[in-house]
């Protein structure tokens, strides 16, 4: 019976099409739909990060006081407002009780060379200027519709990190 079936060539094209559909087309469509969800969420994350940069840039004194309750609240409020209009829920990665960090640089004034990097306020040399950057990390967790083809974890964790100079 089996050798008789093997010897037959009828409907071989249909079988080939079924194989192509199952192993190529369906995973392709599933992968595309996952990809769309992931890159659109990443675009929203990057935009949220830009909004935080702009907040820090426009309110440098407020942003540098990153341990202040009002700074924490304002930065959280910006994210909550974005979330209210977005398809994805973004979170500011906490830094203990706060939601941003500062990085300090001592820059040699004459050359513009960054001499040292600090995580707390430094005492720069006389020929150096202090620069301060505010750093944020935003995260989002998205549910991908078909995690199998791309072997993605589900929910899939995304993040964007960056800093802006405020002084």
């Amino acid at each position, binding site marked *: 019976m089996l050798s008789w079936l093997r010897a037959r060539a009828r409907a071989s*094209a249909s079988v*080939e099409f079924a194989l192509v559909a199952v192993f190529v087309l369906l995973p392709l469509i599933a992968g*595309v739909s996952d990809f769309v969800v992931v890159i*659109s969420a990443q*675009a929203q994350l990057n935009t949220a990060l*830009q909004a935080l940069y702009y907040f820090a840039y426009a309110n440098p004194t407020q942003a540098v006081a990153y341990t202040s309750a009002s700074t924490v*609240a304002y930065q959280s*409020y910006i994210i909550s*407002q974005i979330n209210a209009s977005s398809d994805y829920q973004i979170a500011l990665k906490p830094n203990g009780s706060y939601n941003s960090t500062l990085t300090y640089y001592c820059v040699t004034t004459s050359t513009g060379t960054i001499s040292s990097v600090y995580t707390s306020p430094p005492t720069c040399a006389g020929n150096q200027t202090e620069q301060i950057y505010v750093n944020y990390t935003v995260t989002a967790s998205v549910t991908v519709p078909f995690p199998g083809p791309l072997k993605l974890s589900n929910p899939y964790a995304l993040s964007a990190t960056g800093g802006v100079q405020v002084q």
Partner: protein
Amino acid sequence: MCNSLAALYRVPRATLHALALARRAGAAVEFALCAFALVAFILAILNLGLLGFELGALAHGVQTSARHAGVDAAATYANTGTMTCDSTSTIRGYFNNVAAPPLEASSGSSTDGSPVLTASWTNNAGSGAASEPPGIYLNLAVSYKWQAIGFPFGPGITLKIATVILAPGSAGLSGSAVGGSC
């Protein structure tokens, strides 16, 4: 099967039977079936590229037009002593300047498939809750129904990007320095 096809297309049964047994052009038939997958693959690559391109333009358009509106509000205060906020149609103009093309220009209609802008200003100058930043801020969201090439009758994918921008210098303003448009 042969009977129903023969009846439908008025083809002699003998001809259909001969066709079913024929092995000529089998490779062409198989290619036609595989070509379906090949074309789908090419369209998928093309559409993913376009999607990334248009999504990037959408995000850039939202960020740039929101910043433009925020800075514009600050400029009106510097020039006139009263902060005036841009209307949604003005912000739509900023958006179209930077994002169309590659995106279709936003027309203001929510039914023609062009990007739909939703802009709302919040006036917290001189007041506001403790959890909200003082000053004037704009919440701008743009949604766009993206349609894949080669699938004109598909449902499309709604892309949405939102941002929040504080008008620079508005944090210390008193309520009387803010115009009604904010």
